[in-house]
């Protein structure tokens, strides 16, 4: 799979324009019409200004990218290979993090942290179980001493500890 930066910028410009326009309309009809402020400045005015700026800027991004592509006034940055292994690695890490966040309240912070640390190290091809165990132990102990004992912050407890 390949990445083309021109094409990417066109898509991003289009997506940002669409999302900003939808948000603008929702804010206008929901917030601006229902709440009036002094001198025409309502709670919706500043968000509308920010969204309006995004609409204009996304149109400019789309148009300038298209202009560069059509007129070929600048060199095409070309395509680069999208490294599937990279995408897979990041996706796996994000999956581990989502699971980690999901199980914190169930298993408790410490157990879920140990599991997440082990999962991440195995993903990064650390095969030495001694290193994994020591780093997990140091991590948990440091968090416990510094946060719970030092700063009196209690982390979520699960059904075990």
């Amino acid at each position, binding site marked *: 799979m390949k990445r083309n*930066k021109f094409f*990417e*910028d066109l898509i*991003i410009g289009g997506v*940002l324009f669409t999302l900003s326009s939808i948000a603008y309309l929702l804010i206008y009809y929901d*917030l601006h019409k229902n709440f009036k402020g*002094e*001198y*025409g*400045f309502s*709670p*919706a005015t*500043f*968000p509308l*200004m*920010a*969204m309006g*700026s*995004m609409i204009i*800027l996304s149109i*400019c*991004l789309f148009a*300038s990218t298209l202009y*560069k592509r059509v007129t070929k*006034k*600048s*060199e095409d940055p070309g395509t680069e290979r999208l490294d599937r292994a*990279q995408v897979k*690695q*990041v996706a796996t*890490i*994000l999956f581990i*993090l*989502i699971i*980690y*966040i999901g199980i*914190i*309240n169930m298993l408790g*912070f410490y157990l879920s*942290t140990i599991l*997440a*640390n082990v999962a*991440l*190290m195995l993903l*990064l*091809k*650390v*095969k*030495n179980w001694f*290193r994994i165990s020591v*780093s997990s132990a140091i*991590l948990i102990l440091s*968090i416990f001493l*510094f*946060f719970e004992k030092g*700063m009196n*912050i*209690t*982390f*979520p407890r699960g059904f075990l500890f």
Partner: protein
Amino acid sequence: MLDIFGQSLVIVFTISNLFMIVFGVFIGMLLGAIPGLTGIMAIALLLPFTFTMHPVSALILLISIYKGAMFGGSIPSILMNIPGTPPAAATALDGYPLSLQGKSQKALKIALYSSVMGDVFSDLILITVAGFLAGIALKFGPPEYSMLIIFSLTTIGAVSGDTLLKGLLSAAGGLFIATVGLDPVTATPRFFFGIVELYDGFSLLPMLIGLFALSEILRQLEEKIGGIAKVAFLPLSGKPEDQKVTKEDMKRCLIPILRGSILGGFLGSIPGIGPTVGAFMSYAETRRSSKNPSLFGKGAIEGVAAAESANSAVCGANMIPLLALGIPGDAVAAIIMGAFMIQGLAPGPLIFQTHLDIIYGFFISLILANIANFFVGLISIKFARRLTRISKVMILPIVLILCFTGSYAINTSFFDIKVTFIFGLLGYLMTKFGFPIAPMLIGFILGPMAELAVRQSLIISKGSALIFFKRPISLAFIIITVLAIVYTGIKNSRKSQNI
């Protein structure tokens, strides 16, 4: 004033604060020396720990970490041609060739001396200029402040990222995100979607940790890391003069260090110009004015001196708009601003009147941190090779977990963990597609101030927007903003045509 200065001395010169300075410099140097862990990440992660500290102690810790990291980044840059921090990329241009010649210790020492000298220079500028500028800023009214914020965001957006448009989009995104929560004037709830935690808007620290720490770690972890790598180092040359900075070396480097310090100090005071730009500009200027430009890139010690002095000089000067105007000029300044805000303080011209003791304490700690940086740096140089052996693979998962731990610790809110994750993912995607994240954070911080200033201006003018054009300082900011946009647009357009 003298009695307030005396109070500040008493606050700073405690055993715990002095320990904090040395500890902060050491941690910063250690994290800066590990490629992939930047000073910004270190400060972002440690910010929640400062919540319970005295304001001066908190600032001492954070600024010490940053100063340590600025030199720390040059260690792997020189030894392995892998910049530990982005600004250290300029140091590698001549630092690594020196290592290839067996002169790594000389390169590290000149990097340290240049870094400290650049730091001292910019701190002196900060100490002399900030108060003066704050005095001028006290005359600013809401219209001037509104346009100053718009100018700052535009400049920051223009110089960050691949293109002007992406930088401005990032800033506008930050402004919008800042509107989540209660309206500052009417207390009307905005965009909270029934989530109670969003009544006060997004919390700054979880967002900051997500954008700067988590997103960077995800970017580091996407590389193919095959377990713990063994690093081979280049041998040292046998000659003693190759491992120390001689008088002749120092003589050659004095002008580049001075040039780098002045350039870095000037550039740093402009919002948006970070140490990376300063380092490369100083390097380029030193090479251009050198009698032997062909030696650069092959181990010219002046190149190392120019880059390091400039990148350190930018850091102190970056604090000038923060302290004097309340406008963070870059990501680090934004994080330092976060530190002030956690403590219930608002940087800006008024802080020189209401909390002068804290400002003096901050200034004193800057100087002490430079001294600590020098001595800790000398010791670190001896162990530099061991520092760089610390494996990324062992550190990054721990730092990743600490991102969430730190976020949770701020408000003991599970929601903050989710905020960190979402902004971490957003920051990662933004970086992948060439959108800078610093303008988004700065837009988020300045958004409420900008909204309030604009509304106050319209109340003063009874709804007329002409007030922004009728006030001379406000008009000047508008003109400079437009010129900055036009200039950057033309420059980017010419650059893309010349590629």
